[in-house]
């Protein structure tokens, strides 16, 4: 992964590789386009070669495309941005390792954003495996990047409780009943973060990350709607379309799949120069994806040029 410690020479090599591969793809597509106007079909293997390069090159020479946040993603970013420092944000890790490649980058990005803004974070999870995923955020984000933040004062982890929506049904009115202590057995009343918090209704924002069951739908139904608490979410790409009907009334915004995560990371880097060298896994993953999508669209266009030219020629005859 690229970061500040990459030696300058290697960086230059990467840049050269990136430029060469992108030029190669662009020039190749242009050439094929011109050939298409002259009615020359493209062989399958040429398409294969283009796909191969467009995926392999951005992996070998990490390539990041600028992502412009879509309104649904921007809404989440702006919400966290506009809250005054010291606001209480709950991050619920409702996912397991299988969903992690898509949503862990979101969880990390939310954590970074909240901590840099000085919000207080409550971490919990509705999936038992969410605990392990939180440990990753702890080790990859909080400890290395925010060593000054203190457990219990700036953030707290209250862990997992079995009961799915039942848990939510309780914490909508009383946190302490469900979570008498945090994971380190510190009693609720002596946790700094919980000062002035009795239930979910006292929170400024809730973000559920995952997309399975229990997950965001339960959060909206059992906490967001009855408690009138702002809720946002980050989910896997397959789930995202089903959640759009909730936006913007019941969900203030949502991140769908690696693309959503990449948009958020890009927004974060644009606003905070201190994150310029932080890992941006979603943006890196989007590199080959974007390039491959563009190549496929280019071939669809080439195919249609061929078709139109072919018909024109037939018409002349």
């Amino acid at each position, binding site marked *: 992964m690229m970061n500040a410690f990459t030696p300058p020479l290697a960086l230059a090599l990467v840049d050269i590789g990136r430029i060469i591969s992108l030029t190669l793809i662009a020039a190749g597509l242009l050439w094929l386009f011109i050939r298409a106007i002259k009615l020359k079909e493209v062989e*399958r293997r040429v398409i294969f070669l283009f796909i191969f390069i467009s995926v392999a090159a951005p992996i070998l020479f990490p390539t990041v495309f600028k992502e412009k946040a879509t309104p649904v993603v921007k809404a989440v970013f702006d919400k966290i941005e506009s809250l005054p420092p010291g606001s209480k944000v709950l991050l619920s890790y409702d996912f397991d390792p299988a969903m992690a490649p898509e949503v862990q980058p979101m969880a990390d990005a939310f954590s970074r954003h909240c901590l840099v803004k000085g919000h207080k974070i409550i971490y919990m999870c509705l999936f038992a495996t969410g605990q392990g995923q939180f440990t990753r955020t702890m080790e990859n984000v909080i400890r290395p990047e925010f060593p000054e933040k203190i457990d219990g004062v700036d953030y707290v982890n209250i862990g997992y409780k079995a009961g799915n929506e039942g848990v939510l049904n309780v914490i909508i009115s009383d946190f302490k009943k469900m979570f008498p202590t945090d994971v380190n057995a510190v009693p609720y009343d002596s946790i700094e973060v919980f000062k002035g918090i009795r239930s979910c209704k006292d929170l400024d924002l809730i973000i559920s990350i995952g997309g399975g069951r229990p997950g965001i739908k339960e959060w909206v139904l059992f906490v967001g709607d009855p408690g009138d608490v702002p809720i946002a979410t980050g989910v896997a790409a397959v789930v995202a379309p089903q959640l759009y009907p909730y936006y913007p009334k019941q969900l203030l915004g949502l991140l769908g799949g690696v693309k959503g995560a990449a948009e958020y990371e890009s927004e974060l880097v644009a606003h905070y120069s201190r994150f310029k060298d932080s890992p941006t896994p979603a943006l890196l993953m989007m590199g080959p994806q974007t390039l491959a999508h563009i190549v496929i669209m280019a071939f669809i266009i080439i195919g249609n040029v061929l078709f139109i030219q072919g018909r024109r020629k037939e018409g002349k005859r």
Partner: protein
Amino acid sequence: MVVPARAVPEPADSLKADSVEIIIAPPTSPVVSDFKYDDGNSLILTWVPSIDDLPVGGKVLSYHIFRSDNGGEAKKIAELIPGANYYKDEDLYSDTNYAYHVVALSSNSRAASFQTASIRPQREWVNLNLKYLFFIALIIAASVIYFIETAKRGKKLFVRKIAGLEAVDEAIGRATEMGRTILFIPGIHDMDDVQTLAAITILGRVSRVVADYDTKIRMPVARSLVMTAARETIKASYMSAGRPDAYNDDMVNYVTDEQFGYVAAVDGIMVREKPATIFLLGAFFAESLILAETGNSVGAIQIAGTARPAQLPFFIAACDFTLIGEELFAASAYLSGEPKQLGSLKGQDVGKGIAMLAILLGVLLSTIAAVGDTETITDILNFITRVFTVTN
């Protein structure tokens, strides 16, 4: 046997330190009743939560359910969260008496309800929850059978042309002319999938034409049972074409159960034998496009069909003809050309009519109900919704 605790509820704001016993009221009116429409193996327990189980500042932390079998000692069978007021107990026996009581727990005390009466789970012989399902299924099944019978009596029935199926004869003819093989892939599922059954029934029609034309057919399969069924089917076709000696077991061969192992082998067969015609009919998963693209690259005419909506787009993109969902199941009847088989397709249309009518009425009524809200319309709407709601 169980002495319920009698507690005087205290005002909620008098929360004291944990060392002092927090007294809570017990849950009340526990009632156990039979769970309807099962095989006599579940009961349902309901109760009124403790009055100290308040949404805010409540002192009840959990409920424990206790059960006594045939008057024996009561044992804890479940722990529930605050606010719970029912519990479904499953995997019981219909010859045992069960009695329950519920205990509410605070952080350091407990309060038990009375014990319920002792009852046995009852077995019901008919699941009345499914009565509407049964009736609608009956109507559709009856109309299928009705049209089959009508057709048998010689009434002419019209069925529109299905392009993918019109092409079958031509596709087989092409292979015959070119002297190449026909490849038939029946999906990767076993005989316990209806799509595989559909593929086998279509194979019956295809192999009949193949037998008449004396074309070569090749059928690698991913399941041993499918191999057996396919051999039986092709053999039968050759028999009815009057050429049993032309049949050979080697037309069908087993490759491997492994999804992508099978795909690797079929891809190999495609590029090496260059079949003129490829049928891809049955249950397909991710391999749909791998097979269809490889088949296309060797210049074969491809007729595909599946009932997996996720794979249909790939067949549409890469094959010459695609049977979309319902058409796959109708194919065998269509190809047979027999009136009684075509009759069953007409019966299906009655089902479509019912579905369309229900959707039309439902949307209309619920829109009126959402805007105007009149009671009669809401009643009719609720009825329609209930008819189409399947509960178990």
